């Protein structure tokens, strides 16, 4: 096994350091595999190859076994997600209420497919199977907020909102900067 820390970009390097610091808190037994992977994803929002190799070393199993377990479960992600994560629910109630059409609208709007991230890493879209808000179908989850009774036209509204928010932030930033300059 090669040294996982070699040839990493700064972002991945920081991730490796962080994981190295958190691993000793876990006893090196097999039963801790899934809790460790969950903790890593919780902090870094995905599992990189280097991360999985480190876990394997910690538990004394092969990286292949770690990868095998991680890919078995729906929870784990192997690519960094976007800053804004969009999850479209396709549980039974949402399917019957047209969840697929909602998903398609997000995909079309962002030009990416289910499971992908936009090139600027701003948004990622994925389908999830039931977030358990069936009475509000169709449902989408935007970051941590659940949006009930979705409609294709609401998709447009969400991005307009993001845009307005971004513009506001930029304006405020510009105002702050110019304010600072005046203050000088």
């Amino acid at each position: 096994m090669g040294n996982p820390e070699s040839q990493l970009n700064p972002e991945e390097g920081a991730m490796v350091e962080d994981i190295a610091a958190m691993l000793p808190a876990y006893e090196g037994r097999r039963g801790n595999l899934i809790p460790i992977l969950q903790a890593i994803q919780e902090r870094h929002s995905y599992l990189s190859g280097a991360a999985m190799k480190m876990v394997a070393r910690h538990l004394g199993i092969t990286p292949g076994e770690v990868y095998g377990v991680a890919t078995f479960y729906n929870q784990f992600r192997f690519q960094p997600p976007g800053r804004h994560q969009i999850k479209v629910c396709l549980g039974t109630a949402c399917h019957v209420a047209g969840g697929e059409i909602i998903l398609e609208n997000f995909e079309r709007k962002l030009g990416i497919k289910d499971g992908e991230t936009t090139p600027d890493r701003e948004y990622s879209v994925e389908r999830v199977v039931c977030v358990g808000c069936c009475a509000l179908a169709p449902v989408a989850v935007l970051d941590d907020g659940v949006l009930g009774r979705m409609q294709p036209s609401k998709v447009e509204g969400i991005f307009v909102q993001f845009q307005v928010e971004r513009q506001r932030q930029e304006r405020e930033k510009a105002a702050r900067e110019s304010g600072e300059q005046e203050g000088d």
Partner: protein
Amino acid sequence: MNKKEIEARLASIHREAEGRAEHRKREGIPTIYIVMSTCGLASGAAETKHAFEEAVSHKGIRARIVPVGCLGHCYAEPLVVIDNPASGFPPICYHHVSAGRARVLVGSYLEEGDPVFEYVLGAMERTDLIPSVMDFPRFRLERRVVMEHCGRIDPDDIYQYIARGGYSALAGALASEPAEIIHRIEASGLRGRGGAGFPTGRKWRLARAAVTGGKIAICNADEGDPGAYVDRTILESNPHQLLEGLAICAYAVGANQAIVYVRAEYPLAVQTVKRAITSAKELSLLGFGILGTSFDLEVSLFQGSGAFVCGEETALIRSIEGRRGMPQHRPPYPVEKGLWGRPTVVNNVKTLSSLPAIVEKGGEWFRTIGTESSPGTAVFSVVGNVRHPGLVEIAMGTSLRTLIFDVCGGIPNNKAFKAVQIGGPSGGCLPERFLDTPIDFDSLRQAGAMMGSGGMVVMDEDACMVDVARYFLDFTQKESCGKCTFCRIGTSHLLNTLDRITKGNGREEDVELLETLGEDIKNGSLCGLGKTAPNPVLTSLRYFLDEYAAHIKEKRCPALKCRSLIAYYIDLEKCARGCEVCVGCCPVEAIFTTKGRKKGIDQKLCVKCGECLVACPREYDAVVRVSPPELAPVIERPPDEEKSAGGEG
């Protein structure tokens, strides 16, 4: 440790709980209970709570704001109950309490004493002043055992559960012999609520008899059925009843270790259960020397990583061991050789939550509810095309008709009932003629559906049964762990065939293929996933064969749902000159202006999302959906339109 000492221990905790409740009562200030489970939060309960907090502090009113779990009435969220003792009214339940309504309620009710009748759902008690919710069919026809305290207590405050008699069943159990508890559970006839309906008492007896030490009790809260959220709601609303049941189970089988296995996709439930375990430990209701006895129970929480197959007990055990969650051959059963090779008893959330009541009131009492072969209650999350979706707990033996039409208000929008899907990917769709079927393990199985984990999706005439079957196969095909060939390849073949049919490429022999392959998958699979995966296809073939025939022979979707088999067009007779509503809503700019400033749809660009149909003003009602798609008249895009559209692009 004798019975008296255990009871004395609990009594002191109970006194503390009652003291706290009494203190709150004496204060006499209004209490605002806000439903803050996942459903409530999705409907904006957090904003509602914030608005209440701001409004009371702004107006300088003393009031207590208490977050509570789910009442089960998801259709009316955010729900709020206000107990304002000074007003003379009983506690009142309000529906759809937005932030704005919250501010109105503080001003009108808390300040001026006017309870704002237009927001009222009903009173929580029977009085002459306001009709009580207890008289609504929704409340009257329900029978709550598992969900008795859900939505009425703060899940994070253990004393509220104790004040309502919580943990007294555990104290009673600890004062009796384990064999006596098992006997009582056997007498009650309780069957596992995870779906299969195995007698709980028998499972425990086997686990008790196992000679190996280090036994483990597991609560299975890995609710994976896409369409059920019963377990999540119970965990979020009243985790202590579940923990009490788990402790009783562990004591009866002789386990000193317990694990609550919760889906990681339920973050609120995970946090609520974690806090509940801590607070129960602090009061010595879990942990070492429970209530002063020599019984120890170490309870931990494991987060399931989202694999449907892990609902199967052997797969669930594998995943706790840090492996791929693949089911194992039984025997040996987990009760003999389970987690880490030790005897393990796995019970569902609803099974465990039923236990405190049974232990306290006895098996005979439990048998007075429900039917001979399935005593007790059933909890369903009823969703889809019903007026009042939500969580419902009814006595077993209640008919589907009562549940769907009386308790949940029937089908909205003047549509006709078509089918009810019970049991999720393992269950089946039942048509109208089964509406009088009593809900119990055996009747549902006979009809071709399954109790499952409590998911129930009601479908109106607009649902396509072939599409629903395809949906479930898509799910099980992805979730098949791959161990058994029939399940791994068979489900994928079933899915391809159904895909073909819904796209209009079905073949005459497909129906027979689906039937024989479905039976083969059932016979050739090891675990419940494969054994039940073909059920959605087989039941829909049995009850809705005509829909399959229409798809295959006429290339037509009778419900106008399968998008390859439908088309939208605009009726020029009805379309209003100059109206642009549909143009604005079309996500792909497929709508153009044709002669006389009316609109047409470019079939090549149309993605059939149906937005224009929804958007077209009701007085025009000009958008028409047809199947097969050839029925749509051809409306040419005028050449200048084309040019300008091209020019813009």
